[in-house]
């Protein structure tokens, strides 16, 4: 499965926020791509909730081990210094706050930064996996998502119409157009992507948001 340039761009924008030594859990989809964009010189450790710290890149041809997979059930390799543990130990690690950063895909994000990423109303809900544990437990939760759905609808909304994954808000919401931080009162626009415009972000974000001092100054300079 080859990902779109937009997906890679979002992953690249997320990866800039990782710091050396971070223990990072990457969700399925766009979050998985973050591994490919970690800046040079920044060593991070990938935790996969099915029981491994130190997940390495996709194996080369002929080197696939069918019993070495990540939480997306994709084949991986073993990084230097990796370790294996059971599911209960893995989630003890996650719930206990020992994972520095969880990067999650979402269906929607609400005005307070709360996310919906596991269930679609009106369809039987038959999967939750580790999403709720990661949201509840990771030290920092970063949302990696396209700004709009495939149908062109904004994913950052006043109230989620999809069921929430939990009451804990994300810390950072990164799309191809913008980056928002989250504080007690809700979303704060921290950055507009170089090729995007503040007005586009405003028009395509249904949740109210505040604007960081930096962006505010910039917008004023541009006469917005």
């Amino acid at each position, binding site marked *: 499965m080859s990902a779109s340039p937009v997906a890679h761009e979002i992953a690249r924008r997320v990866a800039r926020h990782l710091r050396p030594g971070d223990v990072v859990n990457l969700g399925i989809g766009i979050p998985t791509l973050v591994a490919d964009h970690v800046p040079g010189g920044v060593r991070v450790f990938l935790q996969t909730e099915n029981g491994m710290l130190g997940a390495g890149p996709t194996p080369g041809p002929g080197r696939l081990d069918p019993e070495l997979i990540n939480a997306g059930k994709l084949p991986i390799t073993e990084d230097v210094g990796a370790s294996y543990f059971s599911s209960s130990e893995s989630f003890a690690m996650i719930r206990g706050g020992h994972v520095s950063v969880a990067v999650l895909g979402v269906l929607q994000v609400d005005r307070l930064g709360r996310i919906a990423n596991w269930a679609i109303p009106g369809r*039987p809900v038959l999967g939750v996996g580790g999403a*709720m544990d990661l949201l509840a437990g990771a030290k920092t939760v970063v949302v990696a998502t396209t700004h709009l759905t495939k149908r062109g609808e904004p994913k950052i909304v006043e109230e989620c119409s999809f069921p929430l994954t*939990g009451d804990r808000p994300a810390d950072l919401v990164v799309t191809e157009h913008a980056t928002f931080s989250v504080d007690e009162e809700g979303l704060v626009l921290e950055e507009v992507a170089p090729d995007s415009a503040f007005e586009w972000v405003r028009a395509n974000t249904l949740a109210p948001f505040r604007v960081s001092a930096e962006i505010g100054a910039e917008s004023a300079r541009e006469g917005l």
Partner: protein
Amino acid sequence: MVGSELISAEEAAALVGSGSTVMVGGFGLVGTPLTILEALVASPGVRDLTTISNNVGEPGKGLGKLLLAGKIRRVIGSYFTSNPDVLERYGRGELEVRLVPQGTLAEAIRAGGAGIGGFYTRTGVGSELAEGREVREIDGQLYLFEKPLRADIALIRAHRADALGNLTYYKTARNFNPEMATAADVVVAEVDEIVGAGELDPEHIVTPHLYVDYLVRAEITLRSGPEPLLDRTGGG
């Protein structure tokens, strides 16, 4: 009995009673006792099982094959979306489904084996899965109450066993297996290799032998490659 008894997959399948609750190790098919499950599919009398497993295998494979054989009445796990057969049978009212967050599932199994009467977790607070459930504030945080899970029998997958039944695991095939080994009345471990007692380093044993009742040699494995697996599970 001293040591764990080596039995055939068919004998292992015969330990599973109709209407019983069965824990099955694995994340997808990785770490699943495929040989025993194959024998269970072929076991004529067994039905109305409740399974506790992260998934229901993959479509038509592992537990997924047991589902198609009509032997499963209820599934407890975290992620069934990857097996459309689950959705179909659920939709027809032929299958009961209990969805548990993956970490809560693992912790509840551990609690079942560890004599813990219940525990509080942050996971799921504020979600639909918390509806109707006991919520408690502890030191300013909200937590959900969760009860332990136990089974009549656990069918697990390990790598090496010694003659006593001590177990080690292989890479990410470890997953739910060590906890399930602690939380069932009868525990059967399907293994790649059986070595003599004393040949596993005491520091490296993950599951001490007291948890393991029976050993079965793995004949159907993922490591023989996806094609052979498809052939085997597609037949019989």
